[in-house]
C-alpha cells in the first residue's frame, strides 16, 4: 500500500527543496543591511496605533465549533460511501440513523437561531 504514496513523498521532497531553497538563496544573495528605522512597524507612514490582534467575538467560536462537528460527520460518510454497495441495507440504515440523530442537532441550532448572524 505504501508504494502508492511514493509519488506524494517525492512531491513533498521537491516542495521542501524548492521552498527551502528560495529562502536560503535569497538569504545568501540578497543584500541585508537592517537598521532601526527600516525594521520598525508603521501604518501608512504613521507609527502603529494598536496591536494587530483584536479580541474576537465569541460567535466566531460558535460557528467554528459547529463547523467542526459537521466536518466530523462528513468524515464518517467517507468510508461509508466507499463500501456502500457491500454493506447492504443494514449498513445503509445504520448511517441513516447516524444522520438522523445529527439532523436533530441541526434542527436545534437552526431553531435556536445559532446559525444567524447580525
Amino acid at each position, binding site marked *: *500500500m*505504501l*508504494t*502508492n*504514496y*511514493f509519488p506524494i*513523498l517525492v512531491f513533498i521532497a521537491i516542495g521542501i527543496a524548492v521552498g527551502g531553497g528560495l529562502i536560503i538563496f535569497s538569504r545568501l544573495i540578497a543584500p541585508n543591511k537592517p537598521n532601526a528605522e527600516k525594521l520598525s512597524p508603521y501604518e501608512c507612514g504613521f507609527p502603529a496605533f494598536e*496591536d494587530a*490582534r*483584536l*479580541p*474576537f467575538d*465569541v*460567535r*466566531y*467560536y*460558535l460557528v*467554528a*465549533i*459547529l*463547523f*467542526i*462537528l459537521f*466536518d*466530523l*460527520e462528513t*468524515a*464518517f460518510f*467517507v*468510508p*461509508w460511501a*466507499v*463500501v456502500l454497495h*457491500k*454493506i447492504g441495507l*443494514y*449498513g445503509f440504515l*445504520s*448511517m441513516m*440513523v*447516524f444522520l438522523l*440523530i*445529527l439532523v*436533530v*442537532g*441541526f434542527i*436545534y*441550532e437552526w431553531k*435556536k*437561531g*445559532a446559525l*444567524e*448572524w*447580525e
Partner: protein
Amino acid sequence: MYIEQLVFIVSSAALIGCALMMVIAKNTVHSALFLVMCFVASAVLWILLEAEFLALILIFVYVGAVMTLFLFVIMLLNLDIISREKGMFVRFLPIGIVLILGMLAMMVYVISPEHFGHLVPVHESADYSNIKELGMVLYTQYVYPLEAAAALLLVAIIAAVGLTFRGKAHRKAQNINEQLLVKKEDRLTILKMPSEGKEE
C-alpha cells in the same frame, strides 16, 4: 525499506521537536502552529502504519478545523504572549525530567519486540484500501459505538450552543416577505376632508 525508515526517522524527529517547541514557545500563536506541525508529522507516521484514512482525517479535521478553533480561542482570550513565570518552569523541571526518564525507561523495557513481536502486522499490497476495510466493519460490527458517537456529536452541538449562544440577535434587516405582502391599504390612509374654498 530504506526510504521507509528514513521517512520514519525524519517525521518522528519532527514530531518530537515540534512537540517540544509547542511547549517552550513563548508566543501562543507559534505554539498553535507547532501543534499543526505535530499533527502533520503524526499523519505521516500513520501513513507509514497504513492507517491512511486516519491520517487523512487527522489532516482535514485537526489541521483544518480544530486548529482554526484553537486560533480562535487564542484570539478570543487575547492571549498575546503568556507571561510564563520562569521560576515555575525551572522549579518543576527536575521532577519533570525524572518522571519523563522513568516513563521512557519503562516504555523502552515494556514496548519491545519481545512483547509485541507476535502481533506484527504484514505489509499490505498496493491495491489494499484501508478505508474499505474500515467501512466494512464500522457500519456493521461497530454500529453500537457508531450510534453512540452520533449522540455524542449531538451533545456537543447542544453543549456548544448552550454555552456560547447569547440568544437571537436583534437584527435591523429587511424582511422581504413583509415588504412584498404590503398592500396599498397598509400604507395609505385617505382622509376625507371638506374642501377649503379658495381665498379670494
